[in-house]
C-alpha cells in the first residue's frame, strides 16, 4: 500500500539531500564548533554557511540568527526573555487567540509571573484585524506576538501591517513563522519584524533544530544560560549536523518556493473544490485567499475527527485533526473554537497538508476515501440521525 502523507504541517520527511549534507558532520567533521583546532573550524564554517543561507532568506544579517532546538524553544525564548528584559518599561503583551500552544502556554506562564496578556480575537476566517492590534496597544505594552501563518487552518496574517503598527508605536514585534518560513516570502525589514521563530522539520529539514531571528538592538536576555555559544545568547554545544541540515533544507526550500507552492496551491484548491462539490455538510476552515499553499482544513459535520484519522490510516493516508501537538488533549482545537465553530463541529475537523511530493492521484484517492469514510461514520452518528429526523 502506497503511503499518502498529508500531514506536512505536523512534520515533514527529511529530504535525502539534507541527510546527505548532514552525514559528514556526525563521523568526519565531528569537532565542537567552539574549539580552536582545525577540526572545530570545519564545524564552525559549516555553521556559518547555514546561518548565511537562512539570514539571506529573510533579509536578515547572519549575526541576527540564533540557532535553537526548534520552534517551541524559539517561541519560549522570544517571549520570556523579552518580558524579562523590558519589564521595567511595562508588563503588557499582545497576542492572538489562535497562536500555537508554544506561544499561548508561555503567555499563561508569563501571566503567572505578573504580566498582562491581551489575546486578540480573530474573524471567522482566522484573520487578525491590524486595527485591533493598534487598539490594544497601551503605554505599557512591550511586545506584540502574532503568528505569520496558522498551523491548523492555514490563514496567513497581515504581518507587514501589524509590523508597521508595532514600529509606529515603538513596540517590539515577534512572529511565529514556523509554518511560513520556506513557504511564504518573508522580509524582516520590510515587514518590521523584530523577532521570528522557525523550526527545521517543517521544511524537510531535521527535527530538533530551529532558530530565533533577533534584530540587532533588541535587548533580549538569554533563555538557556551556560556556555558562550551563539554570541553568548544561547548556551549548549552547537548541534552542527542539525544546523547544517536546516541550512540545506532552507536553501532547497527557497530555491523551489515559487514553483513548489504554485503546484501545491493548485492541488489544494482542487481538493477543496472536490470536497465542496461531492460531500454534503462540509465547511472549509481558514481564509480562502490568504492561505498557506499546502493547507486544507475542513469540518465534516456529524462525524468525529479521530475516527476519520484511524480509518484514513487504515487506507495508508496520514492526516491530522487539529494540531499534532494538541493530541494529548481532549479539548477541541482552540483555533477552531476561536473562529466560532461550535464544539461538535470543531470535533469533526480534518487537516490535510500537502508537500512537494504530493500528486493529483493522491489527492483523488484521499478525497474518495474521505467520502466513503464520512458516509460510513454518518450512518452510525446519533447527531446525523437527529439531523435527518428534524429535516423530515
Amino acid at each position, binding site marked *: 500500500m502506497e503511503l499518502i502523507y498529508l500531514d506536512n504541517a505536523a512534520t515533514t520527511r527529511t529530504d535525502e539531500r539534507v541527510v546527505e549534507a548532514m552525514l559528514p558532520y556526525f563521523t568526519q567533521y565531528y569537532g565542537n564548533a567552539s574549539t580552536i583546532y582545525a577540526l572545530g573550524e570545519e564545524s564552525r564554517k559549516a555553521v556559518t554557511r547555514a546561518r548565511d543561507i537562512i539570514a539571506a532568506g529573510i533579509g536578515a544579517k547572519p549575526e541576527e540568527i540564533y540557532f535553537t532546538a526548534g520552534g517551541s524553544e524559539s517561541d519560549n525564548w522570544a517571549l520570556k526573555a523579552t518580558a524579562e528584559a523590558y519589564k521595567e518599561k511595562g508588563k503588557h503583551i499582545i497576542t492572538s487567540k489562535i497562536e500555537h500552544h508554544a506561544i499561548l502556554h508561555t503567555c499563561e506562564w508569563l501571566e503567572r509571573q505578573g504580566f498582562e496578556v491581551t489575546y486578540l480575537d480573530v474573524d471567522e476566517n482566522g484573520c487578525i484585524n491590524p486595527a485591533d492590534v493598534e487598539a490594544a496597544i497601551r503605554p505599557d505594552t512591550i511586545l506584540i506576538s502574532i503568528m505569520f501563518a496558522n498551523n491548523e487552518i492555514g490563514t496567513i496574517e497581515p504581518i507587514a501591517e501589524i509590523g508597521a503598527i508595532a514600529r509606529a508605536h515603538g513596540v517590539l514585534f515577534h512572529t511565529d513563522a514556523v509554518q511560513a518560513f520556506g513557504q511564504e516570502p518573508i522580509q524582516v525589514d520590510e515587514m518590521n519584524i523584530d523577532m521570528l521563530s522557525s523550526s527545521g522539520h517543517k521544511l524537510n529539514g531535521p527535527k530538533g533544530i530551529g532558530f530565533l531571528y533577533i534584530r540587532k538592538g533588541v535587548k533580549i536576555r538569554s533563555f538557556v544560560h551556560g556556555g558562550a555559544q551563539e554570541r553568548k545568547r544561547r548556551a549548549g554545544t552547537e548541534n552542527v549536523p542539525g544546523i547544517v541540515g536546516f541550512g540545506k533544507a532552507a536553501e532547497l526550500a527557497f530555491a523551489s518556493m515559487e514553483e513548489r507552492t504554485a503546484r501545491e496551491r493548485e492541488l489544494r484548491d482542487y481538493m477543496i473544490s472536490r470536497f465542496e462539490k461531492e460531500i454534503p455538510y462540509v465547511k472549509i476552515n481558514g481564509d480562502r485567499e490568504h492561505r498557506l499553499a499546502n493547507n486544507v482544513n475542513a469540518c465534516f459535520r456529524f462525524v*468525529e475527527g*479521530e475516527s476519520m484519522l484511524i480509518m484514513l490510516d487504515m487506507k495508508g493516508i496520514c492526516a491530522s485533526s487539529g494540531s499534532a501537538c494538541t493530541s494529548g488533549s*481532549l479539548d*477541541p482545537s482552540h483555533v477552531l473554537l476561536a473562529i466560532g465553530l461550535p464544539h461538535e463541529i470543531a470535533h469533526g475537523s480534518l487537516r490535510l497538508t500537502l508537500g512537494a511530493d504530493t500528486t493529483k492521484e493522491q489527492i483523488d484517492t484521499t478525497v474518495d476515501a474521505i467520502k466513503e469514510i464520512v458516509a460510513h461514520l454518518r450512518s*452510525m*452518528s*446519533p447527531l446525523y*440521525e437527529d439531523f435527518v429526523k428534524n429535516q423530515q
Partner: protein
Amino acid sequence: MYSEKVMDHFQNPRNVGEIENASGVGTVGNAKCGDIMRIYLDIDDNGVIQDCKFKTFGCGAAVATSSMATELVKGKTVQEALLVTNKAVMEALDGLPPVKVHCSLLAEEGIHAALWDYAEKNGIVIEGLKKPKNDISEGEEEEEY
C-alpha cells in the same frame, strides 16, 4: 495506540443502528470532548435484553466501547446488565490508553441511561440504578506546568 480488539470493534462495529419502538433509549455525551453515544434496548417481558443497538459520534475508543458494551449486555437480564461496568468493557477490549478511559465511561452511562428510560416508561424501579448524568465530565484536576 489501540489494542487489536479495539481496532476490530472500531473497524467492524457490532450492533450499529436503531431499534424502532425500543424498550429504552439513552443518549449520553461528554461535554469536554464533545462525543455523543446513543443506546437502544429491546427488553422482553422477563426483563431480558433481547437486542441492543447503538449510534456513536466519537473517537475510535468511543465506537469500540459502544460496540463491546452492546455485545456484553445482549441476552443479559436488566440486573445482570448493571454489572457491565466501564472496567468490564475495557477488560473485554484488552485495555484502553489512559486518555481514553472516559470513553468507556460513556458506554457504561449509555447503557444506564437506556435502562433508566426503560424503567421510567414501565414505571418500575431497577435496584442499584442511579439516574444517569447526561453529561459526563471527568473532573480530573490539571497539574500546573
